[in-house]
Structure formats: structure tokens, C-alpha cells
């Protein structure tokens, strides 16, 4: 089973982590909020600034309109004074034949007397029905006599029925020689007594009146124009922006670009007058609704903080516990054991996850146990099959049968040998016990040696010096047999002469001292050192001393300590191995 895959799955699963997408989401939300804030701020600011500009322009234009109207009104009343001046009346009443230069001059003086106290009037013309003219400042004008002879220009004035009619540039009949534009007020003159029309009056007002007015009011962003598009006064730059839409008395607004700046162009026609006022107002900071923006900004900050808080909340309460859970699972995996995990998580949903994991661990462990149990059963079955195959009782029974045959045939020695072999195997196998009494161990060695003596005859002699009180001392099975095997093959046989193996055992401080001594070729100190100090399973298995080393290791494992052996030897003389084995059956005794 591959439990190692779990970790990988977690890391590779579609590559999107909750915490990452959460961060992205929060970031996006904040970004959208900031964008919405900026856009709405811009819109509101622009709107408010425009509204502010519009209101401002409305006020200025209205004020200016009424100023202009009242100025024109003033000049209109002045024109009435001229109409009732006696010398002018005389001039108008006189017969054609009676009109003399003197009379004309008198009338002129009369007009000039009235104008004396007034500024801005450039010229006044009084024209009789028969087109005889009295005019002030007449030499600065060029007269269009053809037009004058026609009726058209007079009709408009006459339609006013004595009321003032304002026009530009004297209805075209007289233009300023220097081309400067004029605002003309024209009215029909009726005789006071007869109420019969006697002529008409035209007053040309200089545009300087408007210039002065603008200066006085301190307006420098105003352009005053005629309805025909002629520039009258103010800022000439705006002349080009004149358009038909401004011919209405209602105030119109237009956004234009001037000198690289967005500005508001507003304009309207002055009441009943052929005059248009244009105003340009730049968008200043004055219109910006700062209070509202601050509130919006505050809201944005609050929103952002909330988003961050939500992110932190989710992180602390969801993703961090998930990481913790995941970490615990990972550690669990690394530890190689499948234990339940115990992680403090803040919510029941995550607890559920932990519970599910733990119950899965339980389940897996159950499955494992089941598997192990099955494996064990299988192993036992296999072992049984194996044992059945070995069938030691078959061996034993066969040995007995052959033994009887030998006895029956008079081969007593064969019977002896078979009996020893049987005894050896019976003790050697010993029901699979790991620990046996020393007496059994001695039996095994005796049988083994007597069988070996059959093979090697007279090169071998064995001696025993076993104290009575050691016979029941429990030792690991098969510690002596490999020792004496060693004695024969690596000691005595190499020497080529008769050798003795002596096994002695005695108790000392409750510990068994088991000594195997052979009169073989001996062992050099280096090898002894190597055998005694070598650890773990690094010892070369092919080494001739592996059996000895392995036996020492087994006794160490059994005794649970390192100090269990002493080896002494003299090259060519003897080897003596002494085991010191504690009483593990009665520990502490």
C-alpha cells in the first residue's frame, strides 16, 4: 500500500490553494473598490465643478445683463431728453425751406448741451422725414447715402412707435470711420402737439461703455458681442466661440478647450437687446465637494480595512487550522505510524474533518491489523506446512527403525551412533525453545562431540567440569555447539595433533561462567580484539570467526549488556573463551 501518495496529492491538487485565491479575491475586491472610488470621485468632482461653474456664470451673466440693460435704459432716457429739447423740436417742425444751417447748428448745440454730462455717447443723429440730418461728431462717420434713401432701415425704428429700438452700427447707414462697432438706439420722433411723426433719432453708444463696465466690475473673462457676431468689448479671445445657440435669452453652457485647459463657456443674449455676453470660467478647485470626497475616502478606508480583516479572519480561522491539520497529517505520515491526530481547531466543521481523518486512521489501522493478522495466519499455515514437511518425528521414527535394524544385524556401533544422532537432533530442535537449561545444552554438545569423534576419531578429546548448581541455569539455546565447532575447525584440526576441548561451568555472584577451552592453534590478539569490539551486522559473514562473533552477539542481546565475554589465547597453545551470563529467569536474584 502506498500511503506516501497522500502528501503529493495535497500539494499537486489542481494547484489552487484557498489562501492564495482568498488573497487574490481580497486584492481584487479592494482594487475594484478603489477604482469605483476614483471613477465616482471624478464624476462627482467634474459634475460639481461644472455645476459650480454654471451657477457662477449664471450669476455673472445675469448681473451683467441687467447692468447692460440698465445702461441702455439710461441712454434711452437721455434720448428722450434730446427729443424734447426746444432747438431740436424747432428743427423738426421747420418747413423744408425754412431749414437753414443756423437752425441745424442750433439743434446740434442743443443736443450737445444735453450730452455734455454724459459719457459714452459717440454720436447722436436726428433725421427729419425729408432726410435732413443733424448729427454730432458727424465727421468720424461714413454715411451710406443709398441705404439712407431706402425705407428699409427706418421701418424697424418706426415699428417701435416711439419706443427705443436698439441696434448695431446705426442700422448700417453710418459706420465709424475707424470701423469701431457701435450700439445704436433708434426711436421715431412724434410731434408733441400734433402727435405726427416728424423724424427719427439715432444714438450711437461707444463700446467703451462696456469696457468700462467690465473694468469696473472686474470681469476679465467676459466677451460682449453683437448678435451678428461683431466683437463689442471684453476678451477678444472668446470671439471665435460665438454661436447661434447663444442668441437665446436663456443661458447656455458649453465645455470647450482653451489654452490647453478645459473651461466652461457660458453665454446668453441680453434682454431685448442685440447683444450677446460670453463668459469663460475655468474649473477651479472651488467647485470640488471636498467634504463628500473625504466621506468617500473614509468609506474606502473602512471597506479596505474590513476586507483585510475578513482575510485575516478567514486565514486565522480556516486556512491556518487547515494547514495545521494538514501539517499534523503530514507529520503523522512521516512518523511512519498511523496515530490519531490531536489539533485544536476553532470550528465544528474542521473538527468534523479531523474526526473524519481520525476515523479513517482507525479504519486503516483496523484494515492493517486485519492484514497483519491474515499475514500471520498465513505465515503460521506456511510454517505448519514447512514443519509438516520436516516432520521431525518421521526422522526420529526412521532413526529408531534403522537403529533396530542395526541392532538386529549385530551392528551395535551403528546403533550407538544412530542413538546419539537421534538424541542430538531431539535436543537440538527442542520444540523451538529459545532458551534451555544448561544441562540440555551440555547434552547437545556431548552428542555433537561424540558424533564428531566418530568422524575425526582420535584427534579429539572432550572434558567436562560442570558444577551441579549450574545444570538448571537457563541459557540461550545453541551457544556451546558453535563454540566447540569453532574449536574443532579453527583450532584443533589446524594443529594436526590430538587436541582437547574442555567445557567448564560454575556460578559466581549468581552469574554463570561458561568456559570453552581448546588446545588448538590459538588466536592472535588482533582477531580477538576485532571479534570482541565489532558491532552490529557489519561483521563479514564469510569470516571464519563469524560463528563465534554471532554467538557473542546473541548472548549480548540475551543479557542486555555488552560485557559478556572474555577471550584469552596463546598462539600455538590454547584458546579460552569465557562467557558470563546473568540469570535472566530470576533477574536481580
Amino acid at each position: 500500500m502506498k500511503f506516501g501518495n497522500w502528501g503529493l496529492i495535497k500539494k499537486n491538487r489542481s494547484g489552487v490553494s484557498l489562501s492564495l485565491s482568498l488573497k487574490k479575491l481580497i486584492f481584487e475586491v479592494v482594487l475594484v473598490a478603489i477604482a469605483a472610488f476614483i471613477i465616482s470621485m471624478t464624476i462627482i468632482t467634474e459634475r460639481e465643478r461644472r455645476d459650480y461653474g454654471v451657477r457662477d456664470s449664471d450669476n455673472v451673466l445675469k448681473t451683467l445683463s441687467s447692468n447692460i440693460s440698465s445702461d441702455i435704459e439710461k441712454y434711452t432716457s437721455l434720448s428722450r431728453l434730446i427729443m424734447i429739447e426746444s432747438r431740436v423740436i424747432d428743427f423738426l417742425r421747420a418747413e423744408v425751406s425754412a431749414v437753414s444751417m443756423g437752425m441745424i447748428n442750433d439743434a446740434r448745440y442743443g443736443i450737445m448741451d444735453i450730452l455734455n454730462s454724459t459719457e459714452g455717447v459717440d454720436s447722436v443723429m436726428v433725421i427729419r422725414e425729408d432726410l435732413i440730418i443733424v448729427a454730432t461728431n458727424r465727421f468720424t462717420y461714413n454715411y451710406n447715402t443709398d441705404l439712407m434713401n431706402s425705407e428699409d432701415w427706418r421701418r424697424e425704428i418706426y415699428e417701435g412707435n416711439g419706443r427705443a429700438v436698439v441696434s448695431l452700427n446705426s442700422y448700417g447707414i453710418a459706420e465709424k470711420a475707424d470701423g469701431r462697432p457701435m450700439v445704436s438706439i433708434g426711436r421715431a420722433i412724434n410731434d408733441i402737439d400734433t402727435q405726427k411723426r416728424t423724424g427719427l433719432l439715432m444714438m450711437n453708444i461707444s463700446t467703451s461703455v462696456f469696457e468700462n463696465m467690465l473694468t469696473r466690475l472686474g470681469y476679465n473673462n467676459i466677451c460682449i458681442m453683437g448678435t451678428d457676431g461683431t466683437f463689442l468689448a471684453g476678451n477678444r479671445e472668446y470671439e471665435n466661440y460665438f454661436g447661434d445657440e447663444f442668441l437665446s435669452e436663456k443661458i447656455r453652457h458649453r465645455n470647450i478647450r482653451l489654452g490647453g485647459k478645459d473651461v466652461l463657456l457660458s453665454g446668453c443674449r441680453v434682454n431685448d437687446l442685440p447683444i450677446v455676453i460670453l463668459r469663460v470660467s475655468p474649473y477651479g478647485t472651488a467647485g470640488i465637494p471636498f467634504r463628500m470626497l473625504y466621506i468617500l475616502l473614509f468609506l474606502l478606508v473602512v471597506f479596505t480595512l474590513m476586507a483585510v480583516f475578513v482575510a485575516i479572519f478567514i486565514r486565522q480561522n480556516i486556512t491556518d487550522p487547515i494547514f495545521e491539520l494538514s501539517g499534523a497529517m503530514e507529520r503523522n505520515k512521516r512518523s511512519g505510524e498511523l496515530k490519531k491526530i490531536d489539533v485544536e481547531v476553532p470550528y465544528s466543521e474542521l473538527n468534523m474533518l479531523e474526526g473524519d481523518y481520525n476515523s479513517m486512521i482507525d479504519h486503516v489501522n483496523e484494515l492493517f491489523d486485519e492484514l497483519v493478522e491474515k499475514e500471520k495466519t498465513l505465515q503460521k499455515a506456511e510454517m505448519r506446512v514447512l514443519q509438516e514437511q520436516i516432520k521431525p518425528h518421521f526422522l526420529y521414527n526412521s532413526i529408531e527403525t534403522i537403529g533396530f535394524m542395526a541392532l538386529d544385524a549385530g551392528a551395535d556401533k551403528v546403533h550407538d551412533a544412530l542413538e546419539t544422532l537421534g538424541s542430538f537432533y531431539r535436543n537440538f530442535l527442542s520444540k523451538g525453545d529459545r532458551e534451555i537449561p544448561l544441562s540440555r545444552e551440555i547434552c547437545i554438545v556431548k552428542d555433537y562431540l561424540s558424533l564428531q569423534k566418530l568422524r575425526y576419531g582420535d584427534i579429539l578429546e572432550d572434558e567436562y567440569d560442570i558444577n551441579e548448581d549450574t545444570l538448571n541455569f537457563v541459557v540461550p539455546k545453541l551457544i556451546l555447539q558453535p563454540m566447540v565447532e569453532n574449536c574443532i575447525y579453527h583450532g584443533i584440526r589446524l594443529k594436526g595433533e590430538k587436541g582437547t576441548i574442555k567445557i567448564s561451568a560454575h556460578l559466581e555472584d549468581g552469574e554463570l561462567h561458561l568456559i570453552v577451552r581448546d588446545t588448538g592453534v590459538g588466536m592472535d590478539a588482533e582477531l580477538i580484539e576485532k571479534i570482541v569490539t565489532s558491532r552490529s551486522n557489519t561483521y563479514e559473514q564469510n569470516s571464519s570467526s563469524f560463528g563465534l562473533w554471532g554467538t557473542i552477539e546473541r548472548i549480548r542481546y540475551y543479557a542486555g549488556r555488552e560485557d559478556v565475554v572474555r577471550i584469552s589465547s596463546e598462539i600455538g597453545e590454547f584458546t579460552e573463551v569465557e562467557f558470563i551470563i546473568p540469570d535472566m529467569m530470576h533477574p536481580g536474584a
Partner: protein
Amino acid sequence: MYRVMIIDDEESARKLMRAAIDYKSLDMEVVGEAASGIEAINTIDEIKPDIAFVDISMPFMDGIEFTETATKRYPNLIIIIMTAIDKFEYARKCVSLPVFDYMLKPMVRAEVTKVLERAKEKLDAMGGASTSDFADSEEEPAITEANSTELIKQYVKDHITDSTLNLAFVAQNFGFSSSYLSRKFKQDTGKNFAKYLTDLRMKKAIKYAEQGYKMYQTAAEVGIPDPNYFGRCFKKYVGMSYSDYIVEKAQ
């Protein structure tokens, strides 16, 4: 002289046991063998051993079952278990039974001799051969029923299929000593009990044989579930082997 019986299904094992040990020096002699627990039950009353070597793994009635039966009927019999199978389960069962010793095969003469020496000591201490379960006792039972032999014959007929039926068992059942019963039975019927029982079984077996039963089936039906022993009994009684008998009858 103490009497030794060897119960083992392997002939060579029995022979080795007989040949390898110097019984004479122990003041013992091997008086009989049995190849199965069934055979032993049927012949033990005549062999009358003081000591029995019993193998555990035998067919039809293993050493454990035999020992269970025998120790009830012959409380003074010394049973020495000999087995090649070193199983804890066997050892545990034997410990719960009054066996004298438990030995593992292959046998080692020295060990067996040692055990026999101890057995001799015990027998000596108990008072020698006179205390044997099979010793002749002259005592008459206090109450003797005139028709007891008839009752016993009827009992045997009724329990003919019980493979553990033997003299000692019946004697125990009727409150007699086996030696008294043996004598009385022979007096009344002219046959000893074992022969009577076997003859009865063989008569029955002949009926089965005539019906064409296989030998092992008949053996089980007549209370000798060991067909080897049954075959020997049949041949002894009829004078020919069971299969020959069936062939002859079929003609």
C-alpha cells in the same frame, strides 16, 4: 519379575524397545505387545503388565485415549509415554493424566533404563507383584448373585460395539475384582472372558461379512475399529482372512 507391555503401532519401534534394553538386569521381562490402543484394551487383561510403554500417535485409539481409559481401570499400572512428536499439547494432556513419565523418541537407552529403574523402585515400594491390578485374588465377593454370569453375558451383548469393553471394565461395572470375574466366568461358561467377547464379536462379524460389508466397516460395527487387529482376530477365529472369507462366501 515385573511384566512390561509395549504399545506402539510401529513394529520396529516395538522390537527396538524390546531388544535395546537389558530387561533382565532390571528384573523385568517384556510379556506382550500391542499394535494399537484397541488391541491393547482387548489383550491387556491377559497380558497383565505392570509397566506399559505407550506411543501417542496411533490410529483408531491414540496413546492419550488409551491412557485415559487404562488409568481408570488399572490404577497401579505404570504408564510411560514414548512419543516422537514433541508437542506441548500432548505434554500438557499427559501431565493431567497419572502417567509415570513422558519420554521423547528417538529413545536413548540410558534414559529409558533410568526411568525403568525408578519404576522398579516404585513397584517395589508398593509391595511387588502382589499389588498388581491383575494379581490373583482369592477373596470371594461378599455378595454373589447366582445369575450374575447371565447378566454379564447380556451386558456384553448389549455393549458389543463399545470398543473399550474388556474384563476389567465389566468387573468394575459389576463390583467384582477382575480375577474373580475371570475365574467365575470361566467356571460358568467354560471360556475365558476375552475369548467369549471375541467369539461373540466374530459371530457378528461373520454375519456382516456374509452381507458383503467391507472389513473396516465390519470392524467398526463389532467394536474393534482397528481393522488390522480385527483382521487378526477374524483369521484366528474363522481360519481364513476376511477378504478370502468374503470371496469364498460369494461363490
